[in-house]
């Protein structure tokens, strides 16, 4: 008997809850790996998807209909080009703005906060972001550098409101309003899509997104070189800033509270591989991320730590979380070791090498997936997915990953 979309939806949601809670589900869940792939497959360029949301939705529908994954993603990774252009966003390059039409947007490394500005950030993060970071990173919002300081609005603070009257400030407000309208349109499209796929029986794999406290400071404020050097140059300031970043992390992640599948995707960048020593990781990275994750877990949220590189050296730390509450998405990591260290504590996801998806055969894919299920999926605790988000793949390889998991991944 065919199952209704509602039944399929519930079944898929339950499957994910089971693996997160380290119970044995009916079978290994499989994610429909995203990024550029639905557009690549649907013959839509990323540039089109970033500009024409209907086209983006159409490509994602085609993808989910034809591949039938357990978890879908929607078009949220195709950022909206219009508001980015209106705002004059400087920290990314994207198709049509420095990159070809079908290339994922990429981050432009820079020091958007100097070492000397730690104190200012620590004293009043909101004011620093509004009057320094925002004008530096969005050319359309440069006038916000003279935004009146709200922390001293009491008594005669209103006398500083004259700054709002300048033509430059009016222009920045006009841009902010226009960009805001565009962002709303984009979100409407995203939630429309998520509702549509839910009606077809597919849950969305994210409820919100987040960044580890160290990466909040390191990616978009200090830059990679800046923050790595700060570890030695001004460790105390960095630790103070990390305390604030942890609060920001919790604010971001709390948006997942109450969702049917409250998955908070945490994009781990500088915590992987050999960026820093184990001692540095245990001082500047992990305790803050862990603290933030525990606060999310308290709200019933599932932290999904998305590691984009090898994390073998971090596995022991990763195991120090409450049992059955966290997913670690891994890449280029020894699954045998990961299962041995994390298997009793957390769910593992991913690690299918993207190069196999792109250049291998369906048999190569099946061979890897069989091994991954045998090793990482023993009695549950594993979600099938590629090592990193998918841009290119032979369709038959992706089909092989998903269909083989549905067949071989059944727990009897």
């Amino acid at each position, binding site marked *: 008997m065919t199952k209704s979309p509602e039944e399929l939806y519930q079944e898929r949601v339950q499957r994910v809850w089971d693996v997160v809670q380290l119970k044995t589900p009916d079978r290994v869940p499989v994610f429909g790996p995203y990024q550029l792939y639905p557009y690549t497959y649907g013959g839509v360029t990323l540039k089109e998807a970033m500009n024409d949301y209907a086209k983006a939705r159409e490509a994602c529908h085609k993808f989910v209909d034809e591949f039938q994954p357990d978890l879908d993603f929607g078009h949220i990774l195709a950022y909206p080009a219009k508001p980015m252009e209106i705002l004059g966003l400087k920290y990314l390059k994207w198709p049509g703005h420095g990159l070809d039409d079908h*290339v994922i947007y*990429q981050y432009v490394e820079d020091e958007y906060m100097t070492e000397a500005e730690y104190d200012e950030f620590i004293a009043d993060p909101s004011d620093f972001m509004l009057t320094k970071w925002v004008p530096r990173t969005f050319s359309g919002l440069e006038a916000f550098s003279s935004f009146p300081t709200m922390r001293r609005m009491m008594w005669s603070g209103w006398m500083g409101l004259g700054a709002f009257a300048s033509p430059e400030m009016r222009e920045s407000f006009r841009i902010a309003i226009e960009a805001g309208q565009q962002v709303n349109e984009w979100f409407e499209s995203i939630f429309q899509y998520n509702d549509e796929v839910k009606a077809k029986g597919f849950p969305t794999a994210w409820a919100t997104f987040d960044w580890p406290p160290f990466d909040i400071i390191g990616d978009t404020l200090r830059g990679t070189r800046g923050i790595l*050097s700060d*570890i030695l140059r001004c460790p105390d300031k960095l630790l103070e800033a990390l305390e604030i970043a942890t609060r920001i992390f919790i604010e971001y992640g709390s948006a997942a509270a109450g969702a049917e599948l409250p998955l908070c995707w945490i994009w781990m960048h500088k915590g992987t591989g050999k960026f820093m020593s184990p001692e540095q990781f245990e001082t500047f990275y992990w305790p803050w991320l862990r603290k933030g994750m525990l606060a999310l877990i308290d709200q019933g949220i599932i932290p999904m730590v998305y590691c984009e590189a090898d994390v073998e050296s971090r596995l022991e730390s990763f195991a120090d979380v409450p049992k059955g509450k966290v997913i670690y998405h891994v890449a280029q990591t020894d699954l045998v070791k990961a299962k041995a260290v994390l298997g009793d504590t957390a769910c593992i996801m991913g690690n299918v090498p*993207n*190069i196999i998806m792109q250049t291998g055969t369906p048999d190569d894919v099946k061979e890897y997936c069989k091994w991954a299920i045998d090793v990482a999926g023993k009695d549950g605790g594993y979600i099938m997915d590629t090592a990193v988000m998918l841009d290119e793949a032979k369709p038959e390889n992706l089909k092989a990953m998903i269909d083989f998991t549905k067949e071989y991944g059944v727990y009897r």
Partner: protein
Amino acid sequence: MKEKLINLIADKHEKEALELVEEMLAQGDDPQMVLDASREAMVIVGQRFEDETYFLPELVFTGETLRKIAEIVKPRLQEKAAVDQPLGKIVIGTVAGDIHDIGKDIVTFLLDVNNFDVHDLGIDVPAQKFIETIKDVKPEVVALSGFLTLAYDSMRNTVQAIQDAGVRDDVKIMIGGGQMDDKVSTYVGADAYGADATVAVKLAKAWIGGE
């Protein structure tokens, strides 16, 4: 004093190292000797990075110390002194479509302190630019960097273009970066994959015969 300077830099005592540099120059020490000492210190840093007593923070930090010393010393150099004969020439760049530079810069830095003559073509480098530079500079090694999976095909196209231009046999090609591994190396037609910057130095030395 030279030995002391080497240790101060390698042990991350930047403030004391800069003070000592000023002191040495004030008492008439050869600015070239100061630069040589800094370079020797960076070789020690490279070794500590290789044996994992140092990680990227130490590499970035001591790199900044080196830059600060060079800023003090360089205006006082009479003329560009004869440097050691480089071990060999290497052309490096992040392949077309990819704009990531951190990994490439670290590899460039370590190759440089290991006395290779490194020609860094930057990021998003078209295949044609690699070919022109290979013809112009005549390097023994070409190093392709890439962070994204899109770099698989970009690297493959670059290697193919180098082949088509008839200069593939003149160079050894190594790849490195985010999602690379030996499988990718085979796919793109490179000679080797390096998991980190120290492997890049080892590969270059093995190929060129520096050690």
